[in-house]
């Protein structure tokens, strides 16, 4: 469902973030993307979201070359994906419920459906009793669970997570990872960028490693450092 062939990304300032990357991901897979700081991991997620365009090469999602999308088609690409970031990116003045519902408002779902579905995902991430709180009244792990609820509320086929546990302590991180595994087990393809060695080594999922923009390792049941 996801395929990169000879993808190169050079930023306007000349730095080459990705260099001739080839990889393909099947529907329902769980993939860790690892690599040192500056290796190009975030750039990879930006290309998939079409926040950046590849300098050369092809990125195919569901048979469509997304480098060729016209600007007005980009929102529809993004609706097929969910994203979570290290810094949660929640609206500080909105309640948990409003933050999650917003993703459905934006795609113009009927209010009745929004209420039902938001309740459903808040239950899934275990925040039903905190639905009326503001992000500032929640712990980091809880905030990330809100972000996760928002990312999956529209049932995306692909979930991108860029260091989702980067700001969390190990125990809280495991809570998030368990949720990601649950989501993945319902058929959502998962791409998780991470520096969390312990998590990668424990789960033994597919591991893709980037080194200065080059894909140097792709293992079926990998560990953090090969």
């Amino acid at each position, binding site marked *: 469902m996801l395929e990169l062939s000879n993808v190169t990304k050079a930023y306007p300032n000349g730095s080459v973030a990705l260099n001739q990357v080839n990889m393909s991901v099947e529907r329902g897979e769980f993939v860790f993307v690892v690599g040192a700081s500056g290796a190009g991991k975030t750039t990879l997620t930006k290309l998939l979201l079409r926040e950046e365009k590849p300098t050369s090469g092809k990125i195919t999602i569901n048979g469509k070359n997304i480098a060729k999308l016209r600007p007005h088609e980009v*929102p529809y690409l*993004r609706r097929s994906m969910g994203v979570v970031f290290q810094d949660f990116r929640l609206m500080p003045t909105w309640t948990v419920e409003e933050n999650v519902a917003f993703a459905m408002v934006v795609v113009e779902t009927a209010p009745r459906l929004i209420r039902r579905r938001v309740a459903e995902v808040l239950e899934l991430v275990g925040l039903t009793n905190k639905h009326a709180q503001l992000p500032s009244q929640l712990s980091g792990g809880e905030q990330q669970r809100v972000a996760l609820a928002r990312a999956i509320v529209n049932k995306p086929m692909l979930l991108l997570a860029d260091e989702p546990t980067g700001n969390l302590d190990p125990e809280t991180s495991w809570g998030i990872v368990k949720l990601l595994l649950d989501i993945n087990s319902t058929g959502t393809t998962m791409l998780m960028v991470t520096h969390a060695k312990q998590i990668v080594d424990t789960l033994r999922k597919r591991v893709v490693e980037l080194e200065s923009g080059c894909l140097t390792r792709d293992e079926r049941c990998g560990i953090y450092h090969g």
Partner: protein
Amino acid sequence: MVKPRTFGYFFESAGKSLLRNSWMTLASISTVAVSLLVLGIFLVVAANINAVAANVEGQLQVTAHLATLSAAERGRLEAEIKAIPGVTDVRFVPQSEAWQRLLEWYGDNQDFLAGWEEENPLRDSFEIRADVSHRVPEVAAAVTVLAGVEEVLWGREIVEQLLAITRMMRLVGIGLMVALALAALFIIANTIRMAIFARRREIGIMRYIGATNWFIRWPFVIEGLVLGLLGGMMAASVLAWGYYLAVRALVQAIPFWPWVQPWPFLQQLALLLLSIGVVIGILGSGLSLRRYLDA
């Protein structure tokens, strides 16, 4: 395409933004209102000058003083004048009638005219009317060259002054309108720019979760529209109220002056001001959206 239902969200979003930046909101509404009010006052004055001009022009006529002519010669001349394009009416005024008019004009102060009676210094004349006032100069020129006509008089100064005033009003008016519209446009654009900055975090999230550009833009367009509309409404109500009172007072002071009546003039004026307000509002927000929002 955005679903109609979603406009509820857009209006709510625009309303929140307007309330959050209440000072900016107030400032832009007032600027729009003041600009449109000045424009409105200008239009009111212009309309009244036009009314006066039309009134005066409607009364304009060409007076041709004649040489001493036989009845036959006079008849031929009258036919020639009637044949000039634009001439609607030709009336012969014998010198005796002219003298009577002079006496009436001076009323009680006619003593100094005594003694002239016998050798009436006035001449026979034709009073000529044109179908439209702007043809008066043309008609006057055509009459001047006819045989038997000694002198042609018409309200040249009045017509030319009125034309000059109208020209100047138009020039000043256009300049004023452009300047004020720009000021209003600028302040709305600035308000929307601030609204965009206040919500850039939200906009960033919207992009990630797949909001279309129009979904992101609409609340700002509505915000600009509301600012323009409210400014226009304020200007229109102040102007309508003010003019209504002014005309009521003026009609008593100068009863026979051709004041433009408040109805339906004010209704048209209000509609115009509201439309201009809306256009300025939408344009202003459009400017900022182009500059600060499009990726």
